[in-house]
């Protein structure tokens, strides 16, 4: 053992309470931008909802085709495909109304390797006719590499309702548990942090919906649920440390307790976000089209969730500090 080794530690420190004003400013502004995205989406007559709803919520048919490219994919413009689809006349069956294909949307994924078309509800035969029509310019397609989803509009509303109900129940349960183990302030702040995280991620997707026509599907709902769970878990660990400080840090003011607790858990929070981000980044870069936006939503949630648990929730806690001590 080298006696001369200085007795310093590399524990990260964060003088949080000194800069709490800046923390609130950053979170406040980000939330405002997010809220702006949601409101703009709502005001946009094309969308008329806080987020651009995908097929899962509006109903319709989605046809995904994998192109058989061989060495390299033939150049394909989505506009060329959509013009074919929009001018297509479909076989009509029985008394069903003819689907209006003017609203058909075509997207290329995976560098043009797969083709996604969203159209109003089609019958199986109409779907086959559509595939046959685009095959000359976009084909050949991989046999067995296609997926056709048709969803009735009532299903999306149900999904939304059941998800919202279960969320409210889940949050109430969490709030009860935290009030029981800590106290009401902590429960309230955990929910504030959670709302902050969910709002910001939703806002980003609202902007993506406005700027890139990105639609949210039921996987996005799953992502929001996960972010909510992650956010609470992350915040609770920091709260646990604050409570511990409050117990044995006799004589320290609340701000001091919070600062010490946040510094003590900082390494852990950064490591944990890092290790959770690693598989998500792998999913984003190598996971393929299906989980791409799902992974992006989650990664965003992890980053925002770490911020809210390190900075936002603890700094809000100092609001309860008696005025005299500030």
């Amino acid at each position, binding site marked *: 053992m*080298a*006696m001369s*080794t200085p007795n310093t*530690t590399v*524990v990260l420190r964060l003088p949080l309470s000194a800069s709490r004003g800046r923390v609130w400013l950053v979170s406040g502004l980000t939330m405002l931008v997010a809220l702006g995205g949601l409101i703009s989406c709502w005001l946009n007559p094309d969308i008329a909802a806080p987020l651009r709803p995908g097929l899962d919520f509006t109903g319709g048919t989605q046809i*995904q085709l*994998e192109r058989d490219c061989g060495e390299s994919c033939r150049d394909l413009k989505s506009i060329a495909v959509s013009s074919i689809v929009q001018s297509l006349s479909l076989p009509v069956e029985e008394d069903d109304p003819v689907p209006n294909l003017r609203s058909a949307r075509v997207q290329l994924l995976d560098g043009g390797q797969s083709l996604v078309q969203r159209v109003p509800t089609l019958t*199986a035969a109409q779907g086959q006719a559509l595939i*046959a029509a685009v095959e000359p310019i976009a084909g050949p397609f991989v*046999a*067995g590499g*296609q*997926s*056709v*989803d048709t969803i009735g509009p009532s*299903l999306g509303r149900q*999904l939304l309702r*059941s*998800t919202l*109900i*279960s*969320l409210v129940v*889940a949050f109430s*349960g*969490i709030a009860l*548990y*935290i009030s029981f183990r800590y106290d009401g302030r902590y429960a309230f702040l955990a929910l504030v942090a959670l709302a902050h995280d969910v709002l910001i991620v939703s806002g980003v997707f609202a902007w993506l919906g406005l700027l890139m026509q990105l639609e949210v599907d039921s*996987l996005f*709902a799953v992502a929001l*649920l*996960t972010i909510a*769970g*992650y956010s*609470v*878990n*992350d915040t*609770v*660990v920091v*709260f*646990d440390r604050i409570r511990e400080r409050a117990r044995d840090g006799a004589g320290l003011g609340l701000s001091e307790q919070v600062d010490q607790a946040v510094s003590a858990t900082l*390494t*852990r929070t950064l*490591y*944990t976000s*890092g*290790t*959770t981000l*690693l*598989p*998500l*980044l792998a*999913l984003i*870069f*190598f*996971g*393929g089209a*299906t*989980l791409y936006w799902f*992974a992006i939503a*989650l990664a965003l949630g992890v980053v925002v969730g770490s911020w809210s648990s390190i900075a936002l929730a603890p700094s809000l806690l100092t609001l309860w500090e008696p005025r005299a001590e500030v």
Partner: protein
Amino acid sequence: MARYQGWFAFVLALAIAAGMFLIRTPLQLGLDLRGGSQLTVQVQPAGDVKVVGDREMEAVKAVLDRRVNGLGVAESTLQTVGTDQLVLQLPGEQDPTAAARVLGDTALLEFRAQREGTEAEFRSLRQLQSQARAILQLRKDQRRRGETPDELNLEDLKDVQESLGLNADGASDDELLQALLDQADDELLTLLNPAQLTGKQLVTAGRQPLQNNPNSWEVTLNFDAEGAEAFADLTQSIAGSDRLLAITLDNKLISAASVGPQFKSAGISGGAATISGNFDAETARELEVKLRGGSLPLPVEVVEVRTIGPTLGAENIRRSLMAALSGLALVAVFMVVAYRLPGAVAVAALSLYALFNLSVYALIPVTLTLPGIAGFILSIGMAVDANVLIFERIKDELRRGNTLIRSIDTGFSEAFSSILDGHLTTLISCAALFFLGTGLVKGFAATLGIGVLLSLFTALTCTRTLLRFLMGYAGLRRPTYFIAQGQRPSTIP
């Protein structure tokens, strides 16, 4: 120390058992991973039934169950979702239209004898139908090959149309043929006597290949006592004549059979009968399914159809697996770099965690879908978090100058309360999402919930057991295996 050897043996035994179980029991993959069709049908109130309740759902499900089994798709499942929906999964089935037809029919099955004196008309109508069907099929095949279907000879058709009283000006060729088929269907029905026997009296239907020709099939019928009597009467009335016994489903002729002269005296008695003639395995199966289906007590509507090709599913598996594994490999490297010996122990414990997780999926069984895999990857994130919390505490203790073993024990007990709180809050939301959510949300909550429970176990038991077991070896009891040299108070050796 003996205490930790015992625990170590227990963990080892558990791991071996889980491994063995996993090898024997394959994981169930969802349709998004292996391809197939999924249909959601909604049961609609009708007639006296204003609200669809449990009893109605039970009845509809029983009928649909029978029909679905008749489809012969291996491992198909039919589940009730919510209060009025049923979800049918058909792994590997790429053509959901067949299933949709079977599910959608509000079948009214009737057995009817042909009216006297209609032999010639009946025969010519059926011939017309089979020709029209053949032409329609041919045109469909041509179109699929990218050819333009041949022009129809409209002159020929005109005669037929006139005889059927059809006016089809301006319709396309296909529409014309379809109209012809429908019209012939209606005409055929007028040639039948009213029903004396319905699907209610049919107990079972089956099919079997003919003894002398295995490529040809017959469909078997079994009636209850009342039905047997009616069937005997019905068959006696037309036995030995050119008239046929017609089977109609929802007022559409699905089959017609002649009755041999040997049944002239008493009809086909005993309540059992076979229908044979021109059935191959496929058409026999289809008729059997229709017969077995019986009547749905309430109409149903198909509200969702999802079909995923098998290669798309395989590609999804491969990619997600690759992504998950590479992500986890990075996490493993990170843990060893950041925490040294305990980091390596954590990697071992996390591998056990993954193994236990997968074997629980096989045990319950959990159907793995894409969101499920995402839930799994995320629960690994939580399991890592528990280890990080513990190791940070151990480092804290070492920095304070505590001895190694003391630091390890204190680290675990100090981290316990935040691990418990974090895991329990997640578990609470998993429970809510599982019991109140539907579809994707439910599957996600299930995998995440299982992950959280197991993570509690592995972090608090496996990591600890392995670490304490290794501490039994003097060579490993070095603080520098736990924390960088410079971070410890130098006064402590």
